[in-house]
């Protein structure tokens, strides 16, 4: 149990580090700002209690907010995404349900499953985040476009990362 929690903690620092040290500093074109840190909440174990899931999501969002001066926008979007997670997992569950302690990775769950899971969750998160950031309806379509493009970029980075770090045995602990 302790080992598991330590592993998650390590994963938390690793993913938040990537977001804060590299991805927050991409200054290209004014449109590109992917939020890959959602991966931490997405890949938490399936059997995690719902209430703890929400609290972890709040903590993750607030940490990112602390670095970006965004008030509580990341926290709000991440908590909402975490709230939908049990429902979405149930919706796209494989026929036999989830194995106990199943890793939510493309290698275990299959590429199509992983991609649809990512797309639903990341798009919901980005949509809410970008609309909260703009907070006015006059920029409705440009915001929608922004959240769509950034979702695609986030998903691409996550999938590439999964195949880079997730496959070999030695690096398994990085991205569970």
């Amino acid at each position: 149990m302790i080992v598991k929690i330590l592993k998650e903690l390590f994963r938390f620092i690793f993913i938040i580090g990537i977001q804060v040290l590299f991805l927050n500093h991409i200054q290209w074109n004014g449109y590109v700002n992917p939020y890959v840190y959602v991966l931490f909440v997405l890949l938490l174990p399936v059997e995690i209690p719902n209430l703890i899931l929400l609290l972890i999501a709040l903590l993750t969002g607030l940490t990112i907010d602390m670095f970006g001066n965004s008030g509580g926008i990341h926290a709000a979007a991440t908590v909402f995404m975490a709230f939908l997670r049990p429902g979405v997992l149930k919706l796209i569950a494989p026929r036999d349900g989830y194995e106990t302690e199943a890793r939510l990775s493309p290698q275990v769950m299959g590429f199509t499953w992983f991609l649809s899971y990512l797309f639903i969750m990341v798009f919901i998160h980005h949509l809410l985040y970008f609309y909260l950031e703009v907070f006015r309806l006059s920029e409705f379509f440009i915001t929608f476009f922004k959240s769509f493009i950034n979702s695609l970029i986030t998903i691409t980075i996550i999938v590439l990362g999964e195949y880079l770090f997730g496959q070999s045995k030695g690096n398994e602990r990085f991205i569970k």
Partner: protein
Amino acid sequence: MRNLFLLLWKYNFFILFLLLETFCGYLIFQNNNFHRSSFVNSTNALSTRINSFVNNITDYIDLRSTNEALSRENAALKMLLPDVFYIDSALQKINKDTVLKQQYSFIAAKVINNTINRRNNYLTLDKGLLLGVKPEMGVICGEGIVGIVKDVSDHYCSVMSFLHKDSRITARMKKNNFIGSLVWDGYDETHASLKDIAKHVVVIKGDTIITSSYSSIFPEGVMLGIVDEVSSSGGNNFQDIRIKLSTSFGKLSYVYIVNNLLKDEQRALEEPLKNDR
């Protein structure tokens, strides 16, 4: 009562969700409110340390262009020195301090964190409360305006960049003194739009826009940008003017915090009039 608790327990997931979202909403509201400092900001010890670490690396890469900008600014300032003027009259007028009362002082600061790609952008500077930085001071650089100080800690302050949905700066056309307001429409960090210039005013590409004397935050006459495109759409009385900003927000590394020494006096005088508007 027991049934109530049972009900609460049955929907505990949903209720906790609502509680947390309310909390987040409160944080967002507080962050939007300019006159109250926000809880979650980048002036705390951990995030400033990490941000300055990243900045130390990126600063090194930009060193060449930063040096060029600073030496350009030096050259411009050198031209203002008394030494460069040839005095062709025997009569000299000396201004005593009783005539010229100092209104602005400047604090030089280093940018340790800066974004340009969000809808609402912020900077973090390495000067804070201990050096006299207070909220609502203006921030400018050699090329033009940068933003307004928002939160202050002992050694750092966070600045609401001009690239923000709530920023609105009173601007003046240099050639004919018409007043408009400059807002950022969120598309591009090099351009902004100038509102409230009526259709009868002649505006052509290349006109200079500077800050007006109406603001108690920025000194008068700081460069804002030049007119890039003028068009007019039907339905209202104003022109659509796109401004090319003079500040290159992507490359900021040294800025000045503006301290208006007479601001409190002006504010105190204007405060009773606010209710009349």
